[in-house]
């Protein structure tokens, strides 16, 4: 179903609903004590399993990106990228491209890692939530850049295939504090799933590379 609320919402904006803003000044927000924020958050998750509670604990990269609201300095970015790059595991067989048809499933699947998912749910990459991929697919999000024609535009260059593998395995190995998940390092996707989705981007037969 088409998102009628959001379209309608934009329409309300287009149609110019005037509303007055009486803003609250920045000085109304005192600096927060990080320990209090941590306690507040732990208080929300007292009834979940220890495994789930652990997911609310920040690693060093999450902590840095949170504190800087993703605007890290050059030196901080270098440190993050070096650390994240170190966690990337290249395919043991040296083969980067899997099956683009399975890759489509990975890109199209938004399930997994939600607290409502049954145990054992295989997670997808949900790339379509954020990226345009096949130019034929109309239901795509815009949080990330368009990847339509990705392999074709790169002449299927093996070096760029390797770069893209690393990007998907750990987006922050390339761009510190990227909004894209670190799919391999965070164990959302397996190496095989990453190879499949990479084939979806780089196989000549893939719909991504068709006009």
């Amino acid at each position, binding site marked *: *179903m088409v*998102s*009628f*609320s*959001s*379209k*309608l*919402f*934009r*329409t*309300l*904006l*287009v*149609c110019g609903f005037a*509303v*007055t*803003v*009486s*803003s*609250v000044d920045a000085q*109304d*927000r*005192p*600096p*927060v004590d990080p320990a*209090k*924020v941590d306690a*507040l*958050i732990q*208080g*929300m*998750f*007292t*009834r*979940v399993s220890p495994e*789930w509670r652990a*997911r*609310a604990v*920040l690693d060093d*990269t*999450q902590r840095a*990106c*949170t504190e800087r*609201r993703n605007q890290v300095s050059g030196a901080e970015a270098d440190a993050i990228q070096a650390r994240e790059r170190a966690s990337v595991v290249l395919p043991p067989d040296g083969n980067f491209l899997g099956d683009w048809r399975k890759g489509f499933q990975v890109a199209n699947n938004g399930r997994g*890692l*939600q*607290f*409502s998912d049954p145990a054992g749910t295989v997670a997808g990459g949900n790339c*379509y*939530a954020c990226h345009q991929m096949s130019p034929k697919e109309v*239901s795509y*999000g*815009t*949080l990330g850049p368009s990847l339509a024609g990705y392999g074709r535009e790169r002449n299927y260059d093996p070096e760029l295939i390797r770069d893209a593998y690393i990007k998907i395995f750990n987006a922050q190995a390339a761009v510190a504090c990227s*909004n894209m*998940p*670190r799919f391999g390092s*965070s*164990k*959302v996707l397996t190496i095989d799933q990453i190879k499949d989705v990479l084939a979806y981007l780089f196989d000549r037969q893939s719909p991504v590379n068709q006009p």
Partner: protein
Amino acid sequence: MSRMRGILALVAAAATCAGIAGTMAQTQDESEREIERYRAMINDPMANPGYLAVDRGEVLWAQARGTKAVSLETCDLGEGPGKLEGAYAKLPRYFADADRVMDLEQRLLWCMEKIQGLDTADVIRRRFSGPGRASDMEDLVAFIANKSNGTRIEPQTAHAREREMLAMGEALFYRRAGAMDFSCATCHAEPGKRIRLQGLPDFSTPGKQAQETMGSWPTYRVSQSALRTMQHRLWDCFRQQRWPEPAYASDGLTALQMFLNVQAAGGEITVPSIKR
């Protein structure tokens, strides 16, 4: 039956107006007429099933319950005991008797326990309605929030605890965690972004998007056939964020609402609205 026709008409009106926005084929005048029709529709108690929740909430508010067998009518939502008009527009706020900053749902639970002597375990179990399971909280929120219609969101920041809650809510909004490193800001900090085809409101800057959003909750969600409160919306966003399930009426959710309402200050409340 007339109610169902109303909803269909509403969807049609919304689609028409959205079409106008997309193609710009029609004049501003026409789209404004559509918007007017839409507004009239959501204000029409016969067309919006959310008003059934309002009616049920009115009954619950006046019903004697709990070990003390009294109603909620002496509950103070911040404007004085039993005073409902405009109360929702100023929540969450600090309550001296509880020594806590509370949102409407926390405050209602507090009143149930303190005033009515009601065991809230069952109420909390039914916090979100489902097929054959009504939710007292959804109904009460619909009734009480509706009493603030026409007023504007007025976040309370005079008390130090309110300012602290606001600051923590803001920190929480930007906090990245979980297996996918998401924060609220991943999805709600830039204008004009979408997930698949769903438009994402930008809450990072104060103004219209936050106002339109916060002024329209609680809402009747057509896709769920249920009246939903902000607690449910945030619960759903935590799910999408791949974070753990947040406890109902926990303080972190109040902090987030505080922050969102500050971004939405001045927004007009028109509830229950009706959404996808």
